């Protein structure tokens, strides 16, 4: 079936449309959205296996030949990310049943989730630069809805800043596409790659590369452009925060990975050096932020910034080890950030505060929560059997291979700060004297805890079972190193 790779994107899209009509019926909405996400995850898994076995899948709409129509491409990287997205979406929606509140559920919360997932997976799968812009807008529009839904004062205040930053970055995206179009005269990613190789990346293309870094860096929160992220994400309700933290910045990271491995590979000494420096500064900024605050949400939010830096550090190495590490770490980070936000959300729900200084002694009453949090925290820092280890190992190895000794050592040192920042939550909230506490019904707590626990188990399995994931990663990393595989597959697929 040639349209097979579109099914995972179409399922949430159509479900979202149906859910708009059912917005008063909360029960039906819950059942339908869980069902749809399960099916989508299953189909995404089948697509991933198909891509691994048969190579890159691509479909060009309307039977047009390749550079003239819009192409959707599922290669190793995008099919892997689409699958991860739906798995996370499934658990976050499940978690949200007990925490998002009935008022939000009746006002298009579930359609918002469905459309944001459509946008994210579409952005992962598209093979056309302007179509990427459109999918970015789909996910941004839904994120505007989700961040402001509820209309609390903090939400209104912060969403104004969030929207303003994204409107500006969208305008910059349009401008960058305009410049790129005037130089190469095409919009299909595979064709752009060919055209840039033909003219061998003159100065203007390098300028455009930096402009794209600016655009996607605003979405991904890299060093000088991360200023909007902590306050905006802090205002969102917990399930929405988990969704944003796990997915939205990662779309920006994906876009940087895609453009910097497919288009701008002929002046690496400038573009990738810049990326390397910015990645190191991003890690530094994130570390400072994560240690400076006593707000549990902000600590994890600054850890997003650190992780973005780590992944881009892997991309900047531009060798197979580094890129494979970046992919490993990208998937790990999507899972672990969702897990951490869900765990921290539980801590906030049982203590009624986000301030570490008012917490304490949770270990006596919620031992399971404590141990699961500890496992997730170790996973984030990259303690060997857990999920963060393999990715960071490969990234650092790639760094040494590329000769960036000092920055690789810096990357290793930053892991200690990451560990310190999350263990601080553990020490303050779970040890010590009994702190602030509010009563939360047992069955409500359990219903939130269960999906979180399953997701922690998944993240542990991802770490222990990395042998099984390696073939998928190898497959994906090969394409990143050698763009001609991508170009050949797409160009051939359309004829």
């Amino acid at each position, binding site marked *: 079936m040639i349209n097979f790779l579109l099914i995972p994107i179409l399922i949430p899209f159509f479900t979202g449309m149906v859910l708009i009509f059912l917005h008063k019926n909360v029960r039906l909405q819950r059942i339908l959205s869980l069902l749809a996400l399960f099916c989508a995850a299953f189909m995404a898994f089948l697509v991933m296996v198909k891509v691994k076995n048969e190579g890159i899948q691509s479909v060009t709409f309307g039977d047009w030949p390749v550079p003239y129509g819009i192409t959707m491409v599922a290669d190793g990287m995008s099919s892997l990310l689409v699958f991860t997205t739906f798995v996370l979406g499934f658990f976050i929606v499940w978690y949200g049943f007990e925490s998002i509140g009935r008022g939000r559920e009746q006002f298009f919360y579930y359609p918002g989730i469905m459309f944001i997932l459509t946008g994210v997976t579409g952005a992962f799968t598209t093979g056309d630069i302007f179509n990427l812009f459109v999918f970015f807008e789909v996910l941004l529009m839904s994120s505007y809805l989700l961040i402001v839904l509820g209309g609390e004062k903090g939400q209104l*205040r912060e969403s104004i800043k969030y929207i303003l930053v994204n409107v500006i970055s969208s305008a910059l995206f*349009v401008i960058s596409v305009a410049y790129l179009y005037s130089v190469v005269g095409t919009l299909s990613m595979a064709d752009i790659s060919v055209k840039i190789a033909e003219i061998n990346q003159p100065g203007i293309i390098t300028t455009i590369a930096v402009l794209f870094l600016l655009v996607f860096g605003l979405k991904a929160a890299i060093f000088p452009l991360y200023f909007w992220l902590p306050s905006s994400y802090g205002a969102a309700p917990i399930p929405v925060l988990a969704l944003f933290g796990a997915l939205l910045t990662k779309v920006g990271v994906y876009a940087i990975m895609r453009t910097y491995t497919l288009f701008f590979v002929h002046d690496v000494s400038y573009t990738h050096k810049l990326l390397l420096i910015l990645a190191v500064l991003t890690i530094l900024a994130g570390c400072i932020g994560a240690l400076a605050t006593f*707000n549990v949400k902000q600590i994890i939010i600054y850890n997003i910034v650190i992780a973005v830096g780590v992944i881009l550090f892997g991309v900047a190495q531009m060798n197979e080890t580094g890129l494979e590490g970046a992919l490993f770490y990208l998937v790990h980070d999507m899972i672990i950030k969702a897990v951490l936000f869900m765990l921290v959300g539980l801590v906030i729900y049982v203590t009624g505060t986000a301030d570490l200084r008012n917490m304490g002694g949770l270990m006596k009453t919620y031992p399971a929560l404590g141990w699961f949090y500890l496992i997730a925290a170790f996973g984030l820092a990259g303690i060997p059997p857990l999920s963060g280890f393999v990715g960071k190992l490969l990234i650092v190895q790639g760094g040494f291979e590329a000769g960036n000794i000092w920055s690789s050592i810096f990357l290793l040192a930053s892991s200690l700060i990451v560990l310190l920042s999350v263990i601080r939550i553990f020490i303050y909230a779970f040890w010590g004297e009994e702190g602030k506490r509010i009563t939360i019904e047992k069955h409500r707590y359990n219903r939130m805890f269960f999906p979180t626990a399953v997701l922690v188990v998944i993240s542990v399995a991802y770490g222990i079972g990395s042998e099984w994931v390696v073939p998928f990663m190898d497959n994906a990393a090969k394409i990143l190193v050698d763009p001609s595989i991508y170009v050949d597959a797409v160009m051939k697929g359309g004829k």
Partner: protein
Amino acid sequence: MEIVMAFVCGFLFMAAIYLILSRSLLRIIIGTGLLSHGAHLLILTMGGLGGESPPVLGEGVTDYADPLPQALILTAIVISFGVTAFFLVLAYRAYQELGTDDTTKMKGSEEDD
């Protein structure tokens, strides 16, 4: 002709950035409007301003304008229209709830609420 358009776009961007850096929320939204006008004009200019007739197939039409940028602009216009509508309503709601349109007064942490 492209040179003139480049200056027009540059002027629009300049005005947009000036307005976005101001305090009043409404000026900021006007700034985003100008920014999107500038971006759309830039797509049109960057596609080249050649061609004698509009890109509609008709008798004896051989030299026509590039149709692709026009399609891109049409898409970008409706998107920015949707976002601007949402932004305006949000600004109205924020004015009702927060009682100010001065962005320098829109700060504070969760403890303040």
